[in-house]
């Protein structure tokens, strides 16, 4: 088994206390360790928040970090407690985790897998983090998840939407609360058909990397199942900034729907270009031309400005859920309130999923009575909960993916402020977005067994 052996601040606190005045160095063999990687033995526990702080997703990373800081406050019994009151599991009491005060370290993933792994390794090896969480892209999530599996710590994914994270690259030590490409497709398709009719021809522009592929596949298969036809799909380079040459052929391709399987800056630019080329006003096949963006993000909606108005997409969560759709989404308001009061604006879905993941981890540790990864895995597998803003949710044991309602949203025509850019169209219930663990879009992966590390 693994012999990841690392510095542990927790141990050292007590160790240093005991060793005070000692001059003889103590020498430890890796094998002399029992238990698991970074077992916290002092009165604190360290979590690692690994988010993009530079590069295109830095703002999203900053929002994730805000949520983490809020979660730590709440876990330590500071602030108003946020979702702790609404969480269906009442194991957490605001006294840290298992009585240990929560401390955290931060790192910069730069949205590059190498940098993200370097940062995560430093958290594990230097800072003694017992759980790593965060990230804003699937490449990073998959890379860090694999690292955590090897090292024997828990990975609670941040924003990662590719099927692969809990599909072919799933890992026993990794968990994803965020929804995925398949769910976006399954949630959006019925509503698209409902809004735009079943006789539609779709043209896909797809970011040329894994997330783009899984999203395109999910969108195409779920819409085709309901009668749509996929006219063409074109891959666009990740580094593209001007999409004009990809957008221009769309109008004359016979398609009447454009699906932009893009995220972040790609999405902002391709959508802006599509609007510039008049696709919003165009008519095709005697119908109004429409644009669909499968994965929405508030921050990117802000970047897209007016162009996002009227465009359908899906989200993991939205801060208006409880206000508009009631009790089922309780917890939303509690979180929005504490976040808003601390930072002055409502949280993004990235912030929400990160906050929830931290709480879920803390809760699982508390219920398991141990920080041991395998115990945590066991506590999280098949865990059903409510009150964290998404309604009743299941952490499925087979692939460590959360199953919950998916929010279908539309860009607002006349937003009142820069945080009110989307309106909720409908919520697709859990059953409709649930799939079998061995669904073809998720095949080829195995969780393996949980790893406790050293």
């Amino acid at each position: 088994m693994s012999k990841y052996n690392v510095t542990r601040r927790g141990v050292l606190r007590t160790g240093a206390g005991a060793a005070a005045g000692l001059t003889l160095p103590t020498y430890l063999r890796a094998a002399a360790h029992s238990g698991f990687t970074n077992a916290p033995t002092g009165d604190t526990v360290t979590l690692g928040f690994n988010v993009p702080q530079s590069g295109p997703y830095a703002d999203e990373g900053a929002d994730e970090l805000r949520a983490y800081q809020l979660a730590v406050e709440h876990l330590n019994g500071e602030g108003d407690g946020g979702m702790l009151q609404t969480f269906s599991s009442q194991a957490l009491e605001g006294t840290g985790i298992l009585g240990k005060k929560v401390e955290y370290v931060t790192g910069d993933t730069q949205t590059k897998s190498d940098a993200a792994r370097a940062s995560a390794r430093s958290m594990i090896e230097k800072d003694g983090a017992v759980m790593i969480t965060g990230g804003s892209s699937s490449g990073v999530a998959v890379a860090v998840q694999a690292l955590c599996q090897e090292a024997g710590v828990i990975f609670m994914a941040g924003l990662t939407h590719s099927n692969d994270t809990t599909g072919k690259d799933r890992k026993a030590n990794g968990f994803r609360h965020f929804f995925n490409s398949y769910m976006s497709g399954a949630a959006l398709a019925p509503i698209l058909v409902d809004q735009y009719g079943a006789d539609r021809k779709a043209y896909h522009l797809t970011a040329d990397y894994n997330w783009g592929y899984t999203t395109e596949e999910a969108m195409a298969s779920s819409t085709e199942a309901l009668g749509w036809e996929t006219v063409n799909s074109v891959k666009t380079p990740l580094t593209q900034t001007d999409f004009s040459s990809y957008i221009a052929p769309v109008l004359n391709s016979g398609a009447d729907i454009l699906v932009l399987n893009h995220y972040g800056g790609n999405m902002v630019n391709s959508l802006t270009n599509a609007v510039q080329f008049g696709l919003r006003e165009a008519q095709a096949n005697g119908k109004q031309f429409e644009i669909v963006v499968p994965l929405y993000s508030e921050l990117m909606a802000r970047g897209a400005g007016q162009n996002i108005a009227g465009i359908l997409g899906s989200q993991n969560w939205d801060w208006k859920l409880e206000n508009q759709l009631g009790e089922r989404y309780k917890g939303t308001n509690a979180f929005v309130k504490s976040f808003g009061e601390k930072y002055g604006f409502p949280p993004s879905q990235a912030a929400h999923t990160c906050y929830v993941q931290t709480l879920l981890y803390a809760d699982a540790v508390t219920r398991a009575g141990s920080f041991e990864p395998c115990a945590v895995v066991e506590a999280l597998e098949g865990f059903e909960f409510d009150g964290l803003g998404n309604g009743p949710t299941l952490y499925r044991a087979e692939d460590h993916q959360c199953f919950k309602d998916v929010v279908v949203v539309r860009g607002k025509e006349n937003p009142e402020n820069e945080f009110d850019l989307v309106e909720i169209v409908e919520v697709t219930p859990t059953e409709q977005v649930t799939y079998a663990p061995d669904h073809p879009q998720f095949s080829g992966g195995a969780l393996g067994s949980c790893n406790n590390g050293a």
Partner: protein
Amino acid sequence: MDQFIVQVLNGLDKGSAYALIALGLTLIFGTLGVVNFAHGALFMLGAFCAVIFSRLISLSHEIVDETRTDFLGNPMTVDVPYMHDIFGPELGASIIDWAVPLAILFSIPVMIGVGFAMERGLIKHFYKRPHADQILVTFGLAIVLQEIIKAFFGANPIQTPAPEAFTGSFDFGVWLGYDPLTIMYPYWRLVYFFFAAVVIGAVFAFLQFTTFGMVVRAGMADRETVGLLGIDIDKRFTLMFAMAACVAGLAGVMYAPIVAPNYHMGMDFLVLSFVVVVVGGMGSLPGAVFAGFLLGILESFASMPAVVDLLPGINQIVIYLVAIIILLTRPRGLMGRKGVMEE
């Protein structure tokens, strides 16, 4: 055929941006012999001139609107731009609407100032230093400029729309005898193309017909001789640098509505602009412009669905592939002069 025409237009449009950036870079690179890795950052600063200017003219004061509430349930505060107070709501709104074109006037002094400060404060001391040192110092400067912008404006792209009058598309097809709606092209992109043509023309005219330009061209050809003639080339080089910064900035200002500016857009263009300059040939202004348009058009063609189906991935690599082929067949790029940056 109609698709072909659209892609030519796209290519010209992309090419305009490449050509403008490469033109400025060639002025610095070919004239002053400075490898300027901060050139992308200058382009980015130009785009942010548009952002800053539109923020400035939409500066507003808050009025509490009791009838509405915000997301926490408190009374809503509504922003009213000062422009509305000064010029009345209508004229004020249209001034704000025209922010990007007006930002040109704002950006010219700003970019000249930036270029001037950069040359006097930093680049001047690096003319005689090895290229490696120039790379390091300008790269450092680029990072610093980027981070300053990031600190103020965040990492997200900032939408900077073109004026209302330029939204929508021009129906080229009708014009060329095709059916309506077959060849549509956005007005703003046409504006960008013409703007680029004007700027490029102005730079060439300036270099061709003024004494200043003649001295600079002579300096590009043989710096030592011009120095020996007793002409104070330094002062002219400062101006030259400021002009190059200004060209990069103008390219950025007008580009803002096409691609929403973000703090690292300069880095995205940096490598490409070096490729364009080198493919055009070191020290050749027409070469840089021509290469810009050539690569823009080829990139557009390569991203046509039919082409991508035939050669998967060609859209990813076409620029580099073409660059390799050109540099192998024409040792000094398309129009390069001998001996410039060959050691």
